[in-house]
């Protein structure tokens, strides 16, 4: 995916992040937060936004600095940049949304260790100009946000009968869906569904021979 040419299709980059290389549904990376923080929609969306922010800013920073980073020490430098931006996200959330931060503070700090962020810095941002890197970061972040939103929406709806904290269904919910075990069920089923839709409808040519 090294789009080093000057004419980069930005739309393709976004699409790549959301569908083709969706962090959770396709690459199966960063599954820990996708299970730990998605038991309600609010947490899921905020986590997604935090990752979107960090991913985009890291990609921009690495892209700006790419000519000054010696290849031999690139990984420590990437980690420094990532942890810098994660600290900014972490402190901002602690300041602006303290209630939610109390529940998921640990997981915000864990963004430092996300494979997907380091991978994009290494594979894309360190080889591309600023604008494509930014768009790539936005695409990957949006893909993550999308996955977390879908997972947490279904888990909250089925596990608590509510959406964004507002009660919707007036019935006995399936308690397991908001427990960690239910997270595995939700991620597994949605991953299968996502790939099924992708194979069935988005890649029609590939299934023509079926």
């Amino acid at each position: 995916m090294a789009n080093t040419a000057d004419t980069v299709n930005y739309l393709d980059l976004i699409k790549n992040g959301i569908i083709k290389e969706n962090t959770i549904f396709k690459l199966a990376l960063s599954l820990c937060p996708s299970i730990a923080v998605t038991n309600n929609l609010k947490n899921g969306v905020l986590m997604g936004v935090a990752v979107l922010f960090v991913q985009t800013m890291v990609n921009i920073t690495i892209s700006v600095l790419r000519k000054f980073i010696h290849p031999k020490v690139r990984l420590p430098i990437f980690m420094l940049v990532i942890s810098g931006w994660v600290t900014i996200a972490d402190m901002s959330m602690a300041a602006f949304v303290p209630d939610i931060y109390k529940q998921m503070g640990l997981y915000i700090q864990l963004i430092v260790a996300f494979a997907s962020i380091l991978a994009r810095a290494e594979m894309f941002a360190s080889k591309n100009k600023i604008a494509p890197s930014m768009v790539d970061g936005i695409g990957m972040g949006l893909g993550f946000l999308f996955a977390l939103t879908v997972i947490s929406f279904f888990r909250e709806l089925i596990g608590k009968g509510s959406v964004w904290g507002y009660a919707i269904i007036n019935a006995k919910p399936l308690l397991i869906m908001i427990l960690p075990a239910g997270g595995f069920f939700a991620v597994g089923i949605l991953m299968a569904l996502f790939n099924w839709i992708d194979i069935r409808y988005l890649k029609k040519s590939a299934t023509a021979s079926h």
Partner: protein
Amino acid sequence: MEKLKKDHQLTLSVSPHVRSEETTSRIMWSVSASLLPATVMGAYFFGPKAVLNVALCIIASILSEFLYQKGTDRKITVNDGSAFLTGLLLGLNLPPTVPFYIPIVGSVVAVVITKQLFGGLGYNVFNPALIGRAFLLISFPKLMTIWAEPTAAFIKLDAKTTATPLGILKEEGVAKLLEMFGDNSNLYLQLLSGHRAGSIGETSAIALLLGAAFLFYRGYITWHIPVSFLGTAGLMAWAFGAKGAFFAGDPIVHLLSGGMLLGAFFMATDYVTCPSVKAGQILFGAGCGFLTMLIRLKGGYPEGVMFAILIMNCFSPLIDRGFKTKVFGAKKEVKK
């Protein structure tokens, strides 16, 4: 050339050349039949509501298998009886008075998620009926622990609720249990006949043993898993069952109560999810018994058969690997 072929009628086929009469569906239906006594006793003690719940489980299991296979263009294998057996086992593992949607949710989880999504019969890692029940127990902790008092009157509709013998044992100790049932021999008798609170099909020890005897007679199960399961559990109950003293517990109460017999004879012996090497089966059974008693005596739940079997299910492939027999004539691997 054509003539030669016809004259000699040579039949060439790949092995196996000797085939047994047994088929998957025959075994499945036989196991289902062996559960008939337990089902009848459940119906006798817990009334029409229990029968309805078991029936709902069976119907929902078969329907969800049919719909899944139809929806994914797979061969429809409803006739092999495995969905029926899964439904029946799940039904027998439910408390008698659960509302109608619980059997349905449990069956869908058991058949679709545990079995079909893993590739269908033969590929599932876990026992489907037990996963269905575990899912329900965690999702509906209140509803799944309401135990109706056995009435032995088929028409009586509003049964009182009570605690299971294991629940009493856990909460109040063995003295309270003896007080409720009179003396030791009466307690054993009630546990044997099934006149006690519990899941629909687990209460009557006699009915379960009858079904198990049928399975032994037909050779569908061997002694390895049940004996090591019950033996380990009994040993642990005897050794650690009493508070304050070693080797003073009552193994018979533990073996006859809860889902121990149903689990040991009908659930742990599931062909797909237990090890296939006999020596491994002994280890598997012992693990089940050990974990069951660990949960019963030290865990948060009064009953541990379900979780014990599910945990050991995970180890089945590993156990099979460890006990794999050596290929005859094969050379020892040379270490580099």
